[in-house]
């Protein structure tokens, strides 16, 4: 099964995110970058399927040229092909992103001479969290998509996909070629090995220069939520605080 995984390069912040002075982006000057977590799991799932059933894993990203780092990382954990759709570095809105990705996918499929049987997106990106690019791409490609997937079993001409709901799963059986939005937890992604990392440097980076018109959602500015003054009541500095804690549990009625 040939699988395409679409990933996004996002900053790796700690407990506080700063915004650039112009409010247009996260101040990532000294933050590292990573692959958005849901997508990292999507990639791991694709690699596991390919390892088990054969086939190739292609990873596609739309982002600044620096996103090559995330593509190489993908290659280091088992992706076979990597494709970059370079942007000017600014954040593209979801419609624009979806148009460009769709074209890139169509181009890649034309070159392959066949459709990817499965295209995996992350359920939503860690940063902008628009919850829609995968759906838009699937629709443009005329393929089915289900989101919030935490289990994939490839079948013959279809995939069985488990969607997480409160307390369990809904089971979908989607005909291929299909698109799925994957959530973290579907697997525990591997780390690259040194040999994997070194091999990834040899992976050929394909570039698809694609532009698309801006959509109707426009970022005005980013800002941090107002700091809430800390009103933490310190109940103690040792285990003798247990009594005060249980008083509170009683008071709010959880100590039935």
């Amino acid at each position, binding site marked *: 099964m040939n699988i395409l995984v679409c990933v996004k390069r996002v900053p790796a912040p*700690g407990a506080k995110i700063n915004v650039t002075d112009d409010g247009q982006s996260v101040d990532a*000057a*000294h933050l590292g970058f990573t692959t958005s977590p849901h997508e990292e799991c999507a990639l791991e799932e694709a690699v596991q399927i390919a390892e088990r059933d054969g086939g190739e894993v292609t990873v596609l990203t739309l982002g600044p040229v620096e996103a090559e780092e995330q593509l190489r990382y993908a290659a280091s954990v088992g992706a076979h092909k990597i494709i970059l759709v370079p942007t000017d570095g600014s954040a593209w809105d979801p419609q624009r992103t979806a148009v460009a990705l769709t074209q890139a996918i169509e181009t890649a499929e034309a070159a392959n001479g066949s459709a990817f049987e499965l295209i995996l997106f992350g359920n939503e990106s860690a940063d902008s969290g628009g919850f829609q690019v995968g759906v838009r791409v699937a629709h443009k490609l005329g393929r089915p998509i289900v989101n919030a997937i935490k289990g994939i079993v490839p079948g013959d001409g279809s995939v069985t996909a488990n969607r997480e709901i409160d307390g369990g799963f809904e089971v979908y059986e989607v005909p291929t070629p299909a698109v799925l939005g994957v959530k973290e937890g579907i697997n525990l992604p591997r780390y690259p*090995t*040194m040999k994997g990392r*070194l091999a990834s440097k040899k992976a050929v980076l394909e570039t698809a220069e694609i532009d698309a018109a801006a959509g109707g959602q426009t970022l005005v500015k980013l800002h941090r939520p107002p700091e809430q003054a800390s009103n933490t009541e310190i109940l103690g500095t040792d285990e003798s605080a247990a009594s005060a804690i249980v008083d509170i549990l009683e008071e709010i009625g959880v100590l039935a």
Partner: protein
Amino acid sequence: MSDFPTSAKVVVIGAGIVGNCLVGHLARLGWTDMVLIEKGPLPNPGGSTGHASNFIFPVDHNKEMALLGVQSANQYRDMNLSVDSGGIEVARTEERMAELNRRMTSAKAWGVEAELLTPAQVKELVPFINDEVILGGFHCPSVSVVDSLETGTVMRKEAQETAGLQVFANTEVLEMLVDDDPVPGMRRIKGVVTDKGTIEAEYVVIACGVWSNRIANMAGTYIPLVPAVHQMADVGPMDVLVETNNEIGYPIVRDMDTFCYERQSAGSMEVGSYAHRPILHHPDEIPSNEEAALSPTEMPFTPDDFDQQMEEAIELMDMLGDAEIKYAINGLLSLTPDAMPCLGELPDVRNLWSAAAVWVKEGPGMAQVVAEWMTYGYPRVIDPHASDISRFYNDEKSDEHIWARAEEHFNKTYGIVHPSEQWETRRGLKESSLKAITDGLGAEYFTARVWERPHWYTSNADLLERYGLSEREVEWDNRWWSPIIDAEHLNLRENAGMVDLTAFQIFDLTGPGAVAFAEYLSVNKVDKPVGTSTYTPWLTPDGGFHSDLTMLRLAEDHIRIMTGAFDGGRDEAWIMKYMPTDGSVTFANRTEDFVTIGLWGPNAPAILGKLTEADLSQTGSPYGSVRTVTLATGDGDIEVDLFRISYVGDTGWEIYVPWDQAPSVWTALEAAGTDHGLRPCGAGVYAVGGRIEKGYRLMGAELESEYNPVEAGLARPKVKAAEFIGREAYLAAREAGPDAVMCTFAVEDHTDSQGRQRFIQAGNAPIVTNEGERILDSHGRVSVVTTAGNAPSYGKYLCLGYLPVDMAEIGNTFKVMYMNELFPVTVVATTGSAFDPEDTRLKS
């Protein structure tokens, strides 16, 4: 926090390994009323300690680093927070094998058990190593892995319990409060402003690791260090490691030629590198604890910089290739312009101290140094001159300089560094007005900190034939050396030599209190007639050497101090520290007002006599006298000061010339000397060959704070009546007599086991008994070579070094270990000179 203090005796900033150990040591030395503040959380505030690889290789060529490394390792051991894993430095090249022999020599010097291993022996200890890519290993069983975070916690808690230390985490310094001081150019620390409140303090210590310079800058001063990346990656798990069921079950391997190490960390292997390009950061680029994904000093890994190291690591240990990289960082550590720590009181802000640029491996020891320094006025555990923050000249404090030098030496962390190795970057910071002339003479320049000094002149190459000199057989011995040095030496003894001594540091003390103050600094009497001089030690309060220099009485209320370029910063800081605050003394640094030209040799009086009518005889210009004379030059008459003195053992003068007129004087002397065989002569003669023949001691080599003037052979028959720093200890040392004596040794045979002629390079080569045993005096001080060099007039290669007093007899034989081989030596002088012991040449 309502109980945040408003005042304290001491505020220590930074609770990494250094700050924690410092408060612990201060508490042990009786300090109380201390506050420790830390901007991050405890126990791991997010500085370099938190991600340190925590191992200690106790062997280092540098004495301070080696002894404090051992000392620190023992402190960790004493707290049971250390495991002796052993460690092996492996060589992939012949050059490295030679270096491992040098490591064996240093191990011998510092008394560290070590052995050389064959590749097969290495593999026995580290079964997963590829023994086909290595030529051998240097095994040190006492290499240890320590728990630096827990050690810090234990030391901090000890200070809390025994000395009432107050600790405030998550408290950031916003401002440093500094007061004016009566002494111009000096200020005094007053306290710190934090986000929790202001603390007024008598002492403030900056132990802020990579952030130290930023905090120093808040006080208007500098701690010249820069945060630099050291990459490391943790790969695993691997069965062979997991099965040890231990944090560390195999020796640490340093793959020296790839500048990498492999250190087991439980089931994983940590691969660390000093091989990648230097990656430096400004302190402001370091994220806060909140902003950082890991910790502030665990910056995002840049894998492109590590690929080469991965390939080499896999080559050495194939199993590493298939293990997962679970954690990889660009870890920050501190680099300084000269690769040594920054310890001591800031030279321009009283009671503001630096305990920075210290790594985990030497943290507890360095903390003890600073604690003792604060307590006793100078450390007792070791002479800290190479780590003294006041060693830096202003040119060494700029970011441009710090960055350039840090970039240059980062990749030498595991490098093979020759003891005479010269810097490539940031040259020409301080040059003589003679530079155009010395350039024309083909000077090869060495640096004395920021100063460029001609070390020899290629224009003297013609002398090689005259004296039958040639290069040395082994490249290492020949590196940073030229036989021209010996030629210049022999010519000086035969005719005369002229030396560019512009790098001399010249300080003037003037005013009604100048002589009394100078007296207070000096062991020997300074209050002598105008026109005389005093060669004298300056002692630490404990009676060890702080300085060794010359003081000239130029007028009733004018003392001029002449000292070497390596010590100018330290000496100036010492003066400023003790300057009277009543305004009775004015200090001026006159270094760039005068050029010193040395003129020595049997023909020196005749040459100088061509330029002046002045009486240059031993009566008209006696030894030790200072005379102002007029020299007739092609550019007219020039007034200069003649100081009849010699550091090379031949008669002559230091001539002090106004800066801009130095070329005229040099040119006139050159012309006058043509018929007298005068040649320019470099520092190779002045600083080594000439002085070693005469047994003249050098500060920082023979003279260190661990030794006193009695032992160095510099005690005068009488002690002056006036009070001076270290007087009490000096009197006690005279009473007790020397425990060790400075001796001159002649090398009797240079032939090594391969039949090559070898020449001992200075660098703490151990002096051992004929049976090969280390020699320690009753204070536990080890005998090592302090200076080594050829003495062409004497006709032998000489070494200086201390011997226990009962061994210090002329004619006694010993061995000196060099490159792990023993060379026979004989004591040829104790307190005196090997060459011309009667000083007849000097007095001629």
